[in-house]
């Protein structure tokens, strides 16, 4: 073992190769300058790019909107996103529309994301929902490294991917694997491993013990030194107002910082979006004095 407590890392990825061409790449370096966050370096290639950055409020948090001009992920496509948010900088990263995965004969579509947060850096990830269609296979591997004083908010929704005949869960496989490591200065330690794997072709995923009769799944991951049991209880209280089956819990604490995990099942993207937004609105207001996120206004 090289270092203690670091996950399998590259073992979780498959290498880019002739049969797995890199269809798109995006690299962003976000830096704080005079109270505003800016992209001090930006690179894109292929079928991934970002819209011109903008500022949704006076907080200095920069918003980048990720665009896939191709409109969808296809078989064997590989997309790579690498983002670093430097000390004190704040980034909101979202998408222009839902991530759509079409038929992937032969091999799965894959997105690899590597996110690094500096001291007092903040990252809010708020992508649109993921839709995997009939015979689609998708892997999303996300590696996030934070410092004890970083702040991460990450919300996601996965839909059942209706097929043309109206049936749900006709896709082959969806994997969303997120590793969050906390780097206190010496060796990074694994804080949370969120591994969502839905294989409708191998399991009955609809019933008790899996989707519990619901169709959509939503997740919220928060890592921040202000996360504690009272916050977990408060967010759980907020979720009661929604038509969803929700659980909230805390990760172990590493170097004084704890993660919060919220998982929710529901029958609509909108309901889950409202539930997750109720939670992020509370965090944005309390921690940063920011108004609710309204991505539909432009």
């Amino acid at each position, binding site marked *: *073992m090289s270092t*203690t*407590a*670091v*996950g*399998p890392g590259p*073992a*979780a990825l498959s290498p880019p190769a002739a049969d797995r061409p890199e269809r798109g790449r995006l690299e962003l370096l976000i830096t704080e300058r005079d109270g505003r966050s800016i992209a001090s370096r930006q690179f894109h290639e292929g079928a991934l790019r970002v819209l011109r950055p903008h500022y949704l409020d006076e907080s200095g948090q920069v918003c980048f909107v990720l665009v896939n001009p191709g409109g969808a992920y296809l078989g064997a496509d590989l997309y790579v996103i690498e983002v670093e948010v430097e000390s004190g900088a704040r980034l909101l990263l979202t998408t222009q529309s839902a991530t759509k995965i079409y038929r992937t004969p032969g091999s799965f579509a894959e997105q690899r994301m590597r996110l690094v947060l500096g001291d007092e850096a903040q990252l809010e990830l708020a992508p649109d929902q993921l839709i995997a269609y009939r015979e689609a296979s998708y892997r999303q591997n996300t590696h996030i490294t934070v410092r004890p004083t970083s702040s991460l908010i990450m919300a996601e929704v996965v839909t059942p991917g209706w097929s043309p005949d109206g049936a749900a869960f006709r896709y082959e496989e969806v*994997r969303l*694997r997120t*590793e*969050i490591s906390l780097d206190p200065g010496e060796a990074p*330690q*694994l*804080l*949370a*491993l*969120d*591994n*969502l*794997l839905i294989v409708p072709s191998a*399991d009955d*995923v609809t*019933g*008790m*013990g*899996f*989707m*519990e009769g619901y169709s959509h*799944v939503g997740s919220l991951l928060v890592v921040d030194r202000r996360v504690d049991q009272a916050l977990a*209880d408060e967010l*759980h209280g907020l979720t009661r107002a929604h038509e969803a*089956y*929700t*659980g*909230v*819990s*805390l*990760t*172990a604490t590493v170097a004084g910082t704890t993660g919060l*995990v919220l*998982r*929710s*099942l529901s029958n609509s993207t909108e309901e889950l979006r409202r539930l997750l937004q109720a939670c992020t609105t509370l965090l944005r207001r309390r921690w940063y004095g920011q108004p609710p996120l309204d991505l539909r206004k432009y």
Partner: protein
Amino acid sequence: MEATPGYQLALQQLTDSALPTGAFAHSLGFETYIERGLVRDEASFGVWLTAFARQQLTFSDGLGIRFLYEDHPVAELDSLLTAQLLPRQLREASVKMGGRLLEIGTDVFPSPALEEYRGLVTSGRASGHQPLAFAVVAHSLGVPLNEALAAYLFAAVTSLTQNAVRAIPLGQNAGQRLLRVAADGVAAAVERVGNLTLDDFGAVSPGLEISQMRHERQRARMFMS
């Protein structure tokens, strides 16, 4: 006639429901289903137990045991388990029962590997999870992987069934019928564990996880998880 393998009685002792690890205190989430009225009789508990064996016991406990047998460093697997057991009570249950297993194992089946794992735990470098503590002992006793897996998984479904018999409640014979069916689920899980990869480690269904998380806030509880 072949003699009984040397580890046979040791394995029976390790997986006997009388082994004092405190398994009687954990529902690992099924108490939430009882509270919601979804688990209420033999058939409905059977559905839950099948899902639990296919998900949690396969992707978390079972894979952890296999990776330890395949010489993945125990500290790394321990850290992966701590990180992937997202519901707090489930993580605490694994560490609580793992701690007891480390103590008992050190007392009755000592080995250098077990001493090493216990040392990592006492020095705060590992948490001490139940499947890993079991795997270290079973491996040191020379138990082949698939036998160790089957014994561990069957012991897990046995204590859960005994707990369900008390909690729902069910008749003793219903419990035995459930275990007979669960044995098929265990055999399938052992086979599936062999076909998974490191990417699969910790992939537990959202429904089970949410129910395990909600147990934290349940008012009347018989179980700690």
